[in-house]
């Protein structure tokens, strides 16, 4: 007990409270910030005063020898009861930290389909998943990571679908993690990356329970963390990062059109402004004379080279975006209007940039926000700068070299040791049904190749007798 007091010395909310039952001294130890007095009274004190034997039967015994175990029980929000006469430690769950209510998602919103988002409570998040999959094949394995924070992590998978090799990789990765603390699951994601130097996300992070459930049913592994609103899904392929959950709730025609836009939008956003540089700096002869004349006219008074002009405008857009996202919502909107209209118009009138470039940069910026995955959206912006520098140095040749790098980089990336460009390499023809074009739901019978699921088919959705 003295050791325990020494260990918890200096922690203001650590409470050591003595009560006497049948003249026997019992010390209650807990953190007042993690429990509710009402719950403490209902679950510990009142039952104890009524019948000590009942409490002894219903509570959990802690091995007293291991002081670290006692401390971790207290830090988890339990109340530890120390029976002085017997020298016995018991623990009762009294955890009652304030948790946010389940709310709608604001980062991955959709017009149709479920709106609930995960919260920062692991238990709530697990319940959100379990509510949707009422099946004993849904397994959960818990881990504690973070040498200083002792953060709880849960790995969820469908036992009858998941690829066991993938599961072993995930578990081994989690066990090997040596990091002091985690404020968010994205840090865990980065630590688990197969290729940490890549600008591309190799795991899918989401706050939507419906995506997590779809992932589980595909045979993927879901990782949730205490205090993290998002969960991560793995493995994931490059193509899947352009899929929105709404695609499955929409008609297949609309879903395919939007997917097509998102996917090719990624490539357009990285080549639009670099092509402007290439054509104007190195290959003006590529353009028809009338188009070239219009372009030259629009940037007639611009004193900078196309490269500097593009870089300037791209950076302005980045600054606006960053400023807008850090401000409160209403001010953020104002920043958007000020930036978009005032600076844009003024920059053209001041002959700092051409109005053609304003259009190209604006379209390029909009296209960069098309991918539903925010990290992928950021990646596209980063990659665009590589293309801008490539175009600035070597024109179209630089762009092609940048493309060669990009394609080869994507080819060499893996997510849980599975090629990132699946199903393109290695190909699995059934994945074509749910790729850039989303076929009608009745065609989506097969699990995605990347998951290497045990069961290859999903149950039929439209079996008619």
């Amino acid at each position, binding site marked *: 007990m003295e050791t325990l007091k020494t260990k918890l010395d200096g922690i203001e909310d650590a409470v050591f409270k003595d009560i006497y039952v049948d003249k026997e001294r019992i010390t209650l130890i807990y953190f007042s910030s993690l429990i509710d007095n009402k719950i403490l009274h209902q679950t510990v004190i009142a039952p104890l005063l009524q019948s000590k034997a009942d409490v002894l039967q219903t509570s959990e015994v802690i091995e007293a020898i291991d002081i670290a175990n006692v401390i971790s029980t207290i830090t988890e929000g339990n109340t530890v009861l120390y029976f002085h006469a017997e020298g016995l430690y018991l623990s009762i769950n009294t955890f009652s930290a304030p948790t946010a209510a389940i709310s709608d998602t604001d980062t991955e919103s959709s017009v149709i389909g479920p709106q609930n988002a995960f919260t920062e409570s692991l238990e709530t998040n697990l319940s959100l998943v379990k509510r949707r999959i009422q099946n004993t094949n849904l397994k959960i394995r818990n881990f504690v990571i973070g040498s200083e924070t002792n953060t709880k992590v849960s790995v969820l998978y469908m036992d009858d679908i998941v690829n066991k090799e993938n599961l072993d990789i995930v578990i081994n990765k989690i066990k090997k993690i040596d990091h002091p603390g985690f404020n968010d699951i994205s840090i865990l994601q980065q630590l688990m990356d197969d290729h940490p130097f890549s600008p591309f996300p190799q795991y899918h992070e989401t706050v939507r329970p419906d995506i997590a459930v779809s992932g589980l049913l595909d045979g993927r592994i879901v990782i949730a963390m205490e205090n993290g609103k998002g969960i991560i899904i793995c493995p994931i392929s490059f193509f899947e990062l352009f899929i929105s959950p709404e695609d499955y709730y929409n008609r297949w025609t609309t879903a395919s059109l939007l997917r097509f836009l998102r996917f090719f939008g990624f490539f357009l956003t990285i080549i639009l402004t670099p092509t402007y540089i290439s054509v104007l700096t*190195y*290959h003006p*002869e*590529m*353009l*028809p*004379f009338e*188009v070239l004349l219009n372009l030259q006219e629009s940037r007639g008074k611009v004193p900078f080279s196309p490269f500097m002009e593009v870089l300037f405008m791209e950076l302005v857009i980045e600054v606006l975006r960053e400023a807008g996202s850090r401000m409160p919502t209403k001010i953020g909107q104002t920043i958007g209007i000020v930036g978009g209209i005032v600076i844009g118009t003024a920059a053209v009138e001041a002959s700092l940039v051409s109005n053609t470039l304003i259009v190209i940069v604006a379209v390029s910026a909009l296209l960069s926000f098309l991918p539903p995955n925010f990290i992928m959206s950021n990646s596209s912006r980063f990659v665009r700068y590589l293309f801008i520098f490539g175009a600035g*140095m*070597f*024109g*179209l*040749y*630089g*762009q*092609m*070299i940048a*493309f*060669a*790098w990009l*394609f*080869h980089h994507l*080819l*060499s990336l893996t997510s849980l040791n599975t090629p990132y460009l699946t199903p393109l*390499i*290695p*190909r699995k023809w059934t994945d074509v049904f749910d790729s850039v074009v989303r076929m009608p739901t009745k065609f989506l019978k097969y699990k995605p190749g990347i998951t290497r699921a045990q069961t290859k088919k999903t149950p039929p959705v439209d079996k008619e007798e």
Partner: protein
Amino acid sequence: MNLVDNKLKVLNHYHVVFLIQNVIIGTSLLSLPNRLSSMGYSLWWMPLLFGVVANLLLIPMIWLVRKYPNDTLFVIHEKLFGKWAGKTINAILLVYFIIVIAAVCSSYIRLIQIVALVDQKITAPLIIFLIIAIYIAHGGIKSVARFCIISFFLTFGLLYFLKWGVADGDIRHIMPFFNFTPQELFTASKKGLMTIGGFELILFYFPYIIYQKKAFKHASLGLWMSMVFTFAFTFVSVMFFSEWQLENLLYPVLNLFQEVQLSYLERLDVLGITMWVYLILSTTAAYIWVAKKGFDSVLSSTKKSHLYFVAAIVFILVRAPYMEAFQKLLFERVFYVMYAFFLWPILLCLIHMMKPKKNEGSK
């Protein structure tokens, strides 16, 4: 170098097909109609003849490597000729490969300079090209094969732009058919045969192939895919250009791209030649990988740094301030070594048959 471990067998049938297909198509296709021009309009069927020749040459190659399924040609040399003689032959091969890489890089980068980067020196474009080629080769032969697949799909669309050549060309140019002398056929073959160079690299990546028994079929498929590509460009060139133009235009295929008329794009040849970089990168990366294996063999140590040595020597060969005439001679003459190298496996097959069987690799 002995690849007993099956985990090192990484190339599936798609990899083999596209490795063969893409490594063959280098810069020589761009000038092929010009090289064959001594035959006049009769040149259009030559790529098909080259395809047959290449396919025939493939037979002894595959026969040989199937006798040593876990060894590259570098190891086979050591097994057939003994350690020192084998290493000497490997060293000569290494020099040959490095010169081929330098020749391919040099011709492509100079073309880029002429078409797309008129005011620039070639140093920076060459460096960036070599960096990417090393990056691709760094991942091993599977990485090169994957890049070949991507390159194929990126450049396959270039065939579409032949439409204008067909529309404006004259089909009557393909006749007369046999209007050439044996001397003209010999000259055209001598100059044009280099177009098929690249398929012989199977002697080096054969041990990495998973389905070795089907390698001949897959290699032949890849070979004919590239021959169809080559044939299409040659055929349309014959249709489109006059005999005088075929003889005097150094890069007729490039000029074909110039004929494309789009309302939004004036000169497609710039786009075409810059996109050609994928085909050149596939070729170069594969050769760099083989040269690296050559370094490993000659120095008896496997190191990634050998890739950088290869690239550094290539850079020096292309950029070193020595006589331009010598460089030109070197890059032209190296292709005669290529022809010798095509026939080399036949000699090796004979030596293998005469050698005692104890030297044969494990199957």
